[in-house]
């Protein structure tokens, strides 16, 4: 039974798991919950692997394309099918989602073991997997939007998982509201797309966009669509200025942070931009915006991450920063590099979060880096796997992050490319610094907690196995796309090339050669130049590492002195540039004021309630008067009848005259 003819089975399995655990989970033993949750995602992973095998076996040309199962909406000329699509990009995303998702499910068995909401947790997690798979498999924008909103819902449910904690529910609400802004942009983009192309199907939209006469596309419709789509991506992928929800989302359980807020959901925006690469490539302005926003976010979030003290907050800002890199890659036309970084990032950042979870578990719930230290000997497995992930994200040569980050930085070109590149490299140095800061503060130095009170213990095996698997992937994951000059072959880029640059020859003469030219920028890069760039990036990362080592291992009191001497910038950074406070003052508080004083007290209480109650009171009072007519006296009724007849007759006679 070839899986590619039964694509729907991949998303259906987690949905079944969510449903079964949601309905029966309370009544059956925990073992059954585990089997259903792990089994459904595991089977989805197996189905994906089988799909990959078929993909290789039958050839990509045979299998790529969409399958429509039924017409979902048909209204007038509008038609949206429940259609799934498989191509190289989908394959990569499917592998990332199912593999990392499955590993994190296994990890959660150990991590969530003592939680009362165990069954609820797994039900939500499976639901998330379902929506995420719909998102990456969808063959039109509307179905993608369903998955998009669905992962948002699951994210909201899981951020607010500890719903007795006000901070958790507030964080969930914040994530939901901030994402509304982005989703609004996405929705408008869909309307505009339908108005322009009369379809939301990927293949129709892209072929029409590519063959659009330059006079028409020059009017800016494509730029508008691309920018609005990017607004959606900014919300979902936590970029400037809508990133504020992601750090707060760390209130959720750590496996959730690993799966949803690092490895998969937040990368949906990158996937969406890469999927819409045809539209973006035809809109140079939008591409520039994507690149600049991505790079600024990468830098901005990295600076905040320098001084955070909560282990998960550091990782959250690091995630925002790395997502910025992915958008930078997409924005400069290197979509496959962006997706490559998405993949390696899901490995090492998932691992970092799981490792952080293991540390928190070992410290019995402590998340403050200042109260850790010296954990190296006590939790060796966590230590070594975290080291792999830290090396990968810092860009140590040979590790996965090294290749993917360089693939993005090397793709930067154009007149102002040098500035973009410099800022990108600087961010890479910052990344190395804050990641090793986290690493040293956690594992090295003297313990800064009361060793008699906190019993540090290594996590159980079912938490360690996913760590080890992800550590292996973080180390070797990059070799898939090792550039040619290292004796490797850029399999990844070549694998994705049918998606990102189909049929260069025939398109070269078309008026829209612009984006094909960008796509080629990756291929024609000079080898010597690549090597030089790599050397510079690595050197900068090394400097970041050395500063970190000096500060946190050699002179542990140096950071405090530096913070004291630079108290202004330090306060700015540790206050996260006070963006939350700014939003509260400029947006939230005026909105609450208007809502309370105008919409609540005036519009709702006075106008709406006044009208409704007024109608009711009027009916009641007039009824009180009119009821007296019904005396129960038959003769008075007769009198009324006669009176009515007399009036009627008089009226008729008067009319007839």
């Amino acid at each position: 039974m070839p899986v590619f003819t039964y694509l729907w089975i991949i998303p259906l399995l987690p949905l079944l798991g969510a449903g079964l655990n949601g309905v029966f989970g309370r009544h059956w033993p925990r073992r059954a919950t585990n089997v259903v949750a792990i089994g459904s995602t595991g089977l989805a992973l197996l189905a994906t692997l089988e799909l990959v095998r078929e993909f290789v076996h039958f050839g990509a040309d045979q299998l790529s394309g969409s399958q429509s199962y039924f017409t979902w909406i048909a209204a007038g000329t509008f038609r949206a099918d429940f259609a799934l699509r498989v191509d190289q990009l989908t394959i990569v995303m499917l592998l990332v989602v199912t593999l990392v998702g499955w590993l994190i499910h296994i990890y959660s068995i150990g991590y969530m073991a003592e939680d009362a909401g165990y069954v609820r947790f797994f039900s939500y997690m499976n639901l998330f997997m379902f929506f995420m798979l719909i998102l990456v498999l969808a063959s039109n924008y509307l179905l993608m939007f369903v998955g998009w909103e669905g992962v948002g819902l699951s994210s909201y449910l899981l951020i607010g998982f500890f719903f007795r904690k006000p901070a958790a529910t507030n964080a969930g609400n914040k994530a939901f509201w901030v994402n509304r802004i982005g989703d609004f942009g996405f929705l408008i983009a869909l309307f505009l797309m339908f108005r322009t192309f009369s379809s939301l199907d990927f293949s129709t939209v892209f072929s029409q966009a590519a063959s659009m006469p330059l006079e028409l596309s020059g009017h800016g419709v494509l730029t508008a669509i691309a920018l609005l789509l990017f607004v959606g991506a900014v919300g979902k992928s936590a970029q400037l200025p809508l990133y504020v929800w992601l750090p707060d989302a760390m209130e959720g359980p750590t496996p959730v942070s690993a799966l949803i807020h690092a490895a998969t959901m937040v990368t949906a925006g990158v996937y969406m931009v890469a999927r819409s690469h045809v539209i973006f490539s035809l809109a140079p302005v939008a591409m520039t915006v994507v690149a600049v926003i991505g790079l600024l976010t990468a830098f901005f979030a990295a600076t905040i991450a320098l001084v955070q003290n909560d282990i998960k907050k550091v990782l959250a800002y690091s995630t925002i920063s790395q997502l910025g890199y992915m958008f930078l890659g997409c924005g400069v036309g290197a979509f496959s590099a962006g997706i490559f970084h998405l993949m390696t990032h899901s490995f090492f950042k998932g691992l970092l979060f799981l490792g952080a979870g293991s540390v928190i578990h070992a410290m019995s719930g402590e998340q403050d880096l200042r109260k850790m230290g010296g954990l190296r000997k006590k939790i060796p497995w966590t230590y070594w796997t975290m080291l792999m992930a830290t090396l990968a994200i810092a860009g140590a040569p040979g590790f996965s992050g090294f290749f993917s980050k360089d693939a993005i930085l090397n793709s930067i070109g154009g007149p102002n490319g040098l500035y973009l590149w410099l800022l990108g490299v600087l961010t890479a140095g910052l990344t190395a610094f804050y990641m090793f800061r986290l690493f040293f503060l956690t594992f090295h130095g003297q313990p800064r907690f009361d060793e008699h009170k906190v019993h540090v213990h290594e996590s159980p095996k079912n938490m360690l196995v996913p760590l080890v698997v992800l550590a292996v992937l973080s180390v070797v994951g990059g070799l898939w796309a090792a550039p040619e000059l290292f004796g490797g072959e850029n399999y990844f880029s070549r694998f994705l090339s049918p998606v990102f640059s189909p049929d260069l020859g025939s398109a070269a003469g078309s008026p829209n050669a612009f984006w094909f030219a960008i796509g080629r920028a990756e291929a024609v890069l000079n080898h010597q130049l690549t090597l030089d760039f790599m050397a510079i990036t690595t050197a900068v990362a090394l400097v970041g590492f050395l500063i970190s080592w000096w500060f946190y291992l050699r002179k542990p009191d140096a950071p405090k002195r530096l913070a004291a001497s630079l108290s202004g910038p330090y306060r700015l950074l540790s206050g996260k540039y006070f963006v939350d406070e700014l939003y509260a003052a400029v947006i939230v508080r005026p909105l609450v004021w208007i809502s309370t004083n105008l919409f609540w007290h005036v519009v709702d209480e006075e106008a709406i309630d006044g009208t409704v109650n007024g109608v009711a009171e009027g009916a009641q009072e007039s009824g009180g008067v009119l009821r007296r007519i019904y005396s129960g006296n038959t003769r008075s009724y007769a009198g009324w009848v006669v009176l009515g007849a007399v009036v009627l007759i008089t009226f008729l006679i008067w009319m007839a005259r």
Partner: protein
Amino acid sequence: MVPVSYYLMLSAALFGLGVVGFVFKRNIITLFMCIELMLNAVNLAFVAFSRMLGQLDGQVFVFFVIVVAAAEAAVGLAIVILIARNRKSLNVERVDSLKL
């Protein structure tokens, strides 16, 4: 030949008597008789017009009215008997238990 207006005036007079009696009398039986009076006043008008126009429609209506009046009298008198038994009175003003 008697002009049709004479019949109509007689009909109106009978109807008016019926109405006045119905509104001002208290005995249920009397009310009944007033209703019959009104019905027959209408019958008279029907017949008069029928004769004047040379059409039979009006006379057909009269038969219907007579049939309905008979049925009404049967049901109505049965109700009157029950009221008389239950209330020991034929005063219509005492039949007011349905008021609000």
